[in-house]
């Protein structure tokens, strides 16, 4: 039977509670119990406590498995964002922008509004072209 992470965490809590309940009995009836009885209860307590910790370990593994697909998706998005940032830093883009800006500057000096608009668009395209 395959457990979900929630079930594993729930089992961990149950084992812990049982271990605590046994401990409470052992300590509250300390004088009534023989050393052998104390030892038997104590062994069961440690065993239950470690079962609780084992369940925690299992639950963590299940949570990691359950969210592996989201982890991969986020990893791809992060890589894409990093490439976008790299794009922004690419010298090629800067050169393209510089070239486009020269055209725009020339259009401004020539006082040609049509050419200004066209070259401004060229500058924008050069700055925003996607080379990822």
């Amino acid at each position, binding site marked *: 039977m395959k457990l979900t992470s929630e079930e594993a965490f729930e089992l961990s809590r149950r084992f812990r509670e049982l271990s605590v309940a046994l401990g409470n009995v052992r300590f509250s009836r300390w004088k009534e119990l023989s050393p052998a009885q104390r030892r038997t209860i104590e062994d069961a307590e440690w065993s239950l406590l470690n079962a609780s910790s084992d369940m925690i370990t299992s639950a963590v593994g299940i949570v990691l498995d359950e969210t592996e697909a989201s982890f991969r998706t986020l990893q791809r998005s992060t890589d894409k964002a990093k490439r976008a940032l790299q794009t922004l830093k690419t010298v090629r883009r800067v050169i393209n922008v510089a070239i486009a*800006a020269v055209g725009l500057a020339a259009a401004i000096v020539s006082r040609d509004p049509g050419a200004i608009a066209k070259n401004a668009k060229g500058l924008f395209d050069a700055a925003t072209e996607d080379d990822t």
Partner: protein
Amino acid sequence: MRQTQSITLRIQLFLLTGLVVLGVGCANLAAIREFADISAQSAAHTALVTQYVEFPERQKQFQPSSQHARLDQMSRERAAQKERLLLRHALIEEYMDALGQLATDEPVTYDKDIDAPGKAIVANKFAGENDAGALRSVSKILFRASTDGWRQRKLRELIAESNSPFQEVVGALKRIVDQAFAGDTENEEIAIRNYYQPIILSSKDKAGIAALEEWRDTRLAEVRMRRQAITDYSEVLSKIASGHQKLYDKRDDLDNKDLLQLMSRYAKHLRKRFDTLKKL
């Protein structure tokens, strides 16, 4: 003088035309950057993972030797999970770092390259040195406006496509912190009690009992400090997830004043919580 005024007017016209054509403006998203930076720093905090992996070894000092083989097995299993857990932290850190860089309002430093057109203008005798200087400034402004627009589009895309997996990944880490790491501290407290209580109950030496109780309380205080760190870290993760959700909800209006104020508050809260956490 008239020539200078004419240049100024031409520059104003140029700026207006360019910005209208580009259809973008420079927005100050510093608050988003601030939120992303502190989130990235917080995600890099991995002390709790180390404590989780070392838990079985710490338990050995309280548990009888009959349990040590089982604890060794647990150690191996947790050590095998360590890398996957650290990768979660690293991914959240990298993601928030990328988000912060996309939100930055500072252009990447390529101003020197943008000086090229001004020089080219002079070289081609399109204008004199004064005009070229003015045009260089204008080119920088236009270039910045265009890259800002591009960044914001990329930022919107990143937030839109990442919110769902981001909430899943951060949510999973929070569940691990809340239930696994906190569960460990509860088991640790029980182990400490189980270790000291029988010795205390069997002892008839009052001074010895007092000393043992003091030792026990010191150990319990250490565990409670770890527990506090877990509570704080859980809150940090909640804030990161909630902040990202707000960005997602307002992704088409990222320079919204209310959103930026909220991000600034989130960043302050996170920084305060994270500073406390580092001291523990």
